[in-house]
């Protein structure tokens, strides 16, 4: 294999963490509804809001922007009851991945009641809407029926292109639009994939002291695809 014989220079890890604030948010049709909900807070239609969308659609990103804006406390979906005492005083709550199998249903029921009493809010994120969560506690099921449901879609081309451009800009690198659209057409449709490919391209360019070109993008994406094949069995 040629790859193993040519020594490869490793680059210093100079890239900082990407800036993920409201100002950095790229808005397109795919996430417009969710973004406007975040922007409207605390003027929410219901105490409980569910943000649902597929993996990589940017739920956690949006939720974390809201958390920073609202000063919300984070509670874990499988251990809500335990965390309530500590967060009892603190206003709104954020609960990620509410559709996990071992959701603490009693805990969530109490949390929702607490939010209603306080006139505060709970934001839940999940891949699907509550009807598909398999909730067995009837009281919780009826509470969730009253929740506001917001859907966030799989990222569209415009959103992925915007996010990729922004991630490069965070690294102070300008990339030609045709390179960005090349990447968008070839990666998995998720923000996680976009973040991953930008990281690897940046790494490869720094390692080779080269510009970020379409050829380099092709190289990096095909090596990502190869890696995908190598399941560690």
């Amino acid at each position, binding site marked *: 294999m040629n790859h193993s014989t040519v020594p490869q220079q490793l680059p210093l890890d100079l890239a900082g963490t990407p800036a993920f604030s409201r100002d950095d948010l790229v808005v397109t049709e795919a996430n417009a509804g969710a973004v406007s909900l975040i922007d409207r807070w605390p003027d929410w239609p219901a105490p409980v809001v569910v943000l649902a969308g597929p993996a990589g659609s940017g739920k956690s990103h949006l939720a974390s922007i809201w958390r920073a804006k609202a000063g919300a406390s984070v509670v874990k979906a499988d251990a809500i009851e335990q965390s309530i005492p500590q967060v009892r005083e603190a206003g709104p709550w954020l609960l990620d991945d509410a559709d996990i199998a071992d959701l603490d249903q009693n805990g969530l029921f109490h949390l929702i009641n607490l939010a209603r009493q306080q006139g505060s809010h709970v934001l839940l994120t999940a891949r699907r809407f509550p009807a598909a969560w398999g909730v067995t506690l009837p009281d919780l099921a009826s509470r969730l029926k009253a929740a506001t449901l917001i859907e966030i879609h799989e990222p569209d081309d415009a959103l992925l292109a915007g996010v990729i*451009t922004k991630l490069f*800009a965070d690294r102070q690198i*300008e*990339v*030609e*639009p*045709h390179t960005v659209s090349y990447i968008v057409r070839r990666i998995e449709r998720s923000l996680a994939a976009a973040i991953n490919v930008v990281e690897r391209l940046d790494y490869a360019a720094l390692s080779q002291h080269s510009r970020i070109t379409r050829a380099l993008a092709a190289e990096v994406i095909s090596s990502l695809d190869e890696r995908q094949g190598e399941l560690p069995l």
Partner: protein
Amino acid sequence: MSEERLAPQQHDSLEGIAEPSETPELVGHLEAQYMLLAAQKAGRLPHAIVLAGPQGIGKATFAFAFARHLLSGAEPGANFEPVAIDSPIYRQIASGAHPSVLHLTRPANDKTKGFKTVLSVDEIRRIGRFLSFTSGNGSYRVVIIDPADDMRAAAANALLKNLEEPPSRTIFILIAHSPGALLPTIRSRCQVIRLAPLNDKDLAEVLVRAGQWPDDERVSDALLARSEGSARNAIILQQYGGVEIATALDALATGSADIAASQRLAEAVSGRDSAIQLDVFNGRALELLANAAADAAQSGDTNRAKKLSDAWHMARIAITETATYNLDQKQHALTMISRLNTALKPQSGRM
């Protein structure tokens, strides 16, 4: 106007006429000035604007007046801040040596000693280097693309990269003779400001200031009528026998074939020093075809309109190819005359 010239020669320079960068007064375009000044006052200057409008109405002159205004540091008033012609700002911008202004045009072609036919991607790449440095005194940095029509796809894409995430206190001014031909992605990142053709009074003032106002009243009336509000048109018509060329072409295009007259006209518009005459010739040829096509369409003769519009496209391709591949200009002119003659012939037979 003083005789002294500051600005470097450009591909579209007219002999004896000041370049936009060394034209101290901006005539007309008051609304556009007002709009930009209001935006500046409100702290909402766009980071990129397209100045759109026909060639020769003062778009580049507007761009340089705006650049001088921004770099003078003056508070926004009712007009762009006038800058004295002996001030360093005026002289440095005019000569292309101001540290905060980057003026991109078709670059010199070392092989032909003339200019390249496009605003090349290498020129656009100078923007990256320009913006990687601070302005030097904290002022605005101004990038003028003159005109954006001269960019091919590669250059336009490279520019897009700069427009995507522009640094602060930087303004891009794109000059566009036909903004419709710009990449939509470029247009959408810019605020488009349409500049109107000059009215007769403003056009007359520009021509007087440039020392191009004809003494004979009949000539000046004809000039205003034929120039379509473009100072450049007016000067070319006056100075380069443009009126004669257009008249001769009109006669040859619609009359019966006159080989001797065709030869004379082709001779007059070809050759090293006749670039402007050739421009007038080409421009008039396209105009004749376009007008005839419009007439045909109006009278419901779609068949003829289609033929004429095809002829217009073919003529345009021929013009571009002649320039790009440096083809024989005289031959091009002769072919064009016979092309016009064939296309414009009244239709024989019925539909």
